[in-house]
């Protein structure tokens, strides 16, 4: 049996030196089942072997953090004995192969990470990136992914309240589907995955194990090529109905404190869940494979251990609690099987009908998991493009029309109306604003939620782009009036074995770490997705940031919509007219040339803290951060949301186009009834703020340039996506 050839090692995604290490650990050659287990445990997806070294520099602490990275999800104290638990995770490769199921199971997986910890999921978000609209697969992928996310989230009954959806040719054959779930738990009742108690039962609950998804984790750890379609069978099939039952059963079990530890069977299924639980507890585990509920006959131990069938959990329960636990799962009509027990041997022992199938030492396998210091090269800084003002002399209102109907700026209503964003009846601010707000059940508190990244900035300058992604999430949370708490990061990059892609990863991490540090905004959970390349072409580096903020009184929030006519419009933050890597420069020069706008974190914090205080004190009636497309786009979005126009006067000493469309950071547009008070408090706090106009009428008018009806801008903004999808 022990004849493992070079081909088999390669097929399992292991290198020769990794194989040698396996033999050293075991003191013998592994059998095929053992090789399979090593291959998934040491896959990039499960072991983080290329990224570990760099992830360590991310700040993950604050007085509020209860659990940082390393658990199923991060947990942050929100007072009153409660914690918010959240994480974002990618399902990129499966979603490209089979968009509906790939995206659906992405949602299912991240939901399990959250309720595994004892939290009831209260909101979902997602960050989607597709190829160029003109690419022949894009429409099919958008339709499938959106339907899949909706199909799963709508059925389990968790509202999908926010996210982003963008297009770029670099994602043509490698789309990104990042899903985030947020849950609420009692602080005293958070569950971990650390196995405890020799002799305790190892229990399998949920769906039966089938042959789907075998080697999904290994697939997610390699580049794609033209024959990737043949990998479709490695995509799992989701069953949101069973997930819904599993949520209710697990929460009931936790509520009755019948549980020692619990872990979902995600990537690498039974292998990684049993392994990780025992490893964390410093124990051994013995599993009898014939007791695992199976969907089909004749499954081999290899298949059982590596299946990624969905909606399954592994639990540790004291033998005395077994029968009570079983009753709960029987009520919810779910499988419940005692498949093994915890031991003190420190070994994972697999038996099938009494026959020894595998015997692996847990600690050595876990601690010897490879960690690479991959060579990387810094990204060459983009030269500053000398500005030839003559090139920019275009009618700002024409440019505005152009930008509002760009795929990436167009309204994503077509997407989020396919998601039930209201179920649970706590959604205070639905999708479409800076951050969504959900009320925390039975309280006056609220959570603000957002997902952000500007990949073209990261591409131009990974460190500045990483910083900007964090700053924008922080700003979006601030712009609704919340106090930013913490983030989860989903780092989507190319092949780490290529120094350029690795350099983008390293740069982005440094930028993220810097911003998290200064904004006091720790990373509490996350996921790394590497090898996002097809035929050697990498995606734009995309470190998606999922941010969570707290409102102590949810009623003291603002939205982006103008509220009334004749209110003053104020920009907070300094406008310099930075055009590098902006949407305007793309329109003028044909590509995103130049460096991205620099992020000054000190100003970012100062301006944000000021805006938040003004919102909470009720001095501001509407607020919107200034990001993609610049100031005039933000104003247009505020107008469109309210159907109220604005009269704007650009300063005379400024190139109007740079003023209107520059993408300088740390800025907000706010409206107020008392402009003198606001400007006075700003100047006292050393904040740059100036009044640029008033809300008025049914059109946006810019002095010296004319006006555009808000209704017309709204139509331009809302019609691109539906007409693209119908086309």
């Amino acid at each position, binding site marked *: 049996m022990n004849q493992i050839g070079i081909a088999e090692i390669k097929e399992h995604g292991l290198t020769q030196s990794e194989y040698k290490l396996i033999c050293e650990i075991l003191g013998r050659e592994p059998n095929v089942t053992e090789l399979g287990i090593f291959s998934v445990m040491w896959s990039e997806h499960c072991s983080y072997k290329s990224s570990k070294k760099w992830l360590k520099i991310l700040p993950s602490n604050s007085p509020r953090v209860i659990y940082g990275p390393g658990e199923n999800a991060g947990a942050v104290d929100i007072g009153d004995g409660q914690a918010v638990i959240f994480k974002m995770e990618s399902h990129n490769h499966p979603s490209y192969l089979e968009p509906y199921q790939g995206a659906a199971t992405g949602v299912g997986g991240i939901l399990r990470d959250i309720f595994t910890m004892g939290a009831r999921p209260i909101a979902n978000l997602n960050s989607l990136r597709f190829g160029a609209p003109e690419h022949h697969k894009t429409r099919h992928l958008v339709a499938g992914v959106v339907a899949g996310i909706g199909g799963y989230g709508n059925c389990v009954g968790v509202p999908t309240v926010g996210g982003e959806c963008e297009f770029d040719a670099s994602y043509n054959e490698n789309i990104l589907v990042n899903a985030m779930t947020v849950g609420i738990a009692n602080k005293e009742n958070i569950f971990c995955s650390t196995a405890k108690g020799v002799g305790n039962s190892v229990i399998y609950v949920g769906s039966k194990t089938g042959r789907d998804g075998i080697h999904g984790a290994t697939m997610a750890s390699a580049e794609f090529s033209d024959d990737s379609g043949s990998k479709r069978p490695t995509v799992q099939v989701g069953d949101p109905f*069973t997930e819904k039952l599993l949520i209710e059963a697990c929460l009931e079990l936790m509520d009755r404190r019948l549980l020692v530890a619990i872990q979902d069977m995600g990537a690498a299924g039974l292998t990684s869940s049993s392994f990780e639980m025992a490893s964390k507890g410093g124990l051994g585990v013995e599993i009898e494979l014939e007791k695992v509920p199976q969907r089909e006959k004749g499954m081999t131990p290899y298949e059982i251990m590596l299946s990624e069938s969905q909606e399954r959990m592994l639990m540790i329960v004291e033998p005395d609690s077994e029968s009570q636990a079983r009753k709960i799962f029987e009520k919810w009509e779910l499988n419940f099987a005692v498949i093994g027990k915890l031991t003190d041997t420190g070994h994972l022992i697999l038996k099938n009908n009494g026959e020894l199938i595998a015997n692996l030492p847990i600690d050595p396998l876990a601690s010897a998991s490879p960690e690479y210091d991959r060579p990387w090269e810094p990204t060459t800084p983009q030269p500053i493009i000398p500005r030839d003002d003559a090139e920019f002399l275009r009618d700002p209102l024409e440019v505005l029309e152009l930008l509002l109907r760009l795929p990436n700026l167009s309204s994503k209503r077509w997407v989020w109306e396919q998601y039930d964003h209201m179920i649970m009846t706590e959604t205070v601010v639905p999708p479409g604003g800076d951050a969504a707000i959900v009320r925390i059940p039975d309280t006056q508190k609220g959570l603000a939620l957002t997902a952000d990244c500007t990949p073209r900035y990261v591409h131009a300058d990974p460190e500045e782009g990483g910083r900007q992604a964090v700053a924008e999430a922080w700003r979006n949370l601030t712009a609704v009036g919340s106090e930013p708490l913490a983030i989860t990061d989903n780092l989507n990059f190319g092949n780490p074995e290529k120094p350029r892609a690795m350099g983008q990863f390293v740069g982005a991490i440094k930028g993220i770490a810097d911003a998290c540090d200064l904004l006091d905004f720790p990373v509490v959970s996350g996921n790394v997705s590497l090898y996002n390349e097809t035929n050697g072409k990498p995606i734009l580096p995309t470190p998606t940031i999922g941010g969570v903020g707290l409102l102590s009184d949810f009623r003291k929030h603002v939205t982006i919509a103008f509220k009334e006519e004749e209110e003053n419009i104020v920009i907070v933050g300094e406008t310099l007219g930075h055009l590098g890597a902006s949407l305007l420069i793309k329109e003028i020069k044909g590509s995103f040339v130049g460096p991205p706008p620099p992020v000054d974190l000190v100003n970012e914090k100062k301006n944000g803290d000021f805006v938040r205080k003004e919102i909470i004190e009720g001095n501001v009636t509407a607020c919107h951060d200034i990001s993609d497309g610049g100031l005039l786009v933000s104003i247009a979005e505020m107008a469109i949301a309210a159907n109220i126009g604005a009269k704007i006067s650009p300063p005379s000493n400024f190139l109007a186009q740079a003023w209107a469309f520059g993408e300088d950071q740390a800025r907000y547009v706010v409206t107020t009834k008392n402009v003198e008070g606001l400007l006075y408090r700003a100047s006292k706090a050393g904040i740059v703020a100036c009044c640029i106009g008033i809300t008025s009428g049914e059109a946006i008018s810019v002095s010296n340039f004319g006006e555009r009806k808000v209704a017309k801008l709204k139509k331009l903004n809302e019609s691109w996506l539906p007409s693209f999808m119908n086309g």
Partner: protein
Amino acid sequence: MKIAVIIFPGSNCDRDTKKAVAQTLGCPPIMHWHADVELPKVDCVILPGGFSYGDYLRSGAMAAHSPVMREVVGQAKKGILVIGICNGFQILTEVGLLPGVLMRNKNLKFVCRKVWLSIETTKNIFTSRYRKGEIIGVPIAHHDGNYFADEYNLKMLQDNDQVVLRYVDSAGRRGPDTNPNGSVDDIAGILNKGKNVLGMMPHPERAVDEAIGGTSGRRFFESIT
């Protein structure tokens, strides 16, 4: 007024409905698991929204065969009030308490948004606290809300004043752009002949709180007391 909310495997608006009943009527309903023996004695049963049994066979088809539904049908025939919201409406058509069927939305997509409804009749208990012709905004969230009834049943519904809600725009006008799912005659909600059973696709439980979704759904609950 005793109210029971039935929970099927896959119901997911049960908790929202419970909250809405408690909020509008001041007392929480009985939450009744579908498989538990004997339906408690109540004046009103609510079948909440969701995806009972995953909607895998056909929306509401499996739940219609749950033992509790035999009791609900029996009690309905004796005159207790029954309200089916969204998936609950689908179950009521499957079990035969209401005529017609709810098919996949015309554009084949799930749709979640606030829609405008016109109160078509108030000659029944469920809409007794609304004005006839009143226009209210209430959310919908469904994949299978495309109501269809054959000519005979449709005429019966119209002639007996059983069409209780229609999709309109904010000014009360009907038209293809205001109907979100393609339902026949713009129907959003209907009554049975005895007018003690109501089925509606919109979610009134999502419109009982000023801070969240407004309060235009409150009177559906207030009307039954």
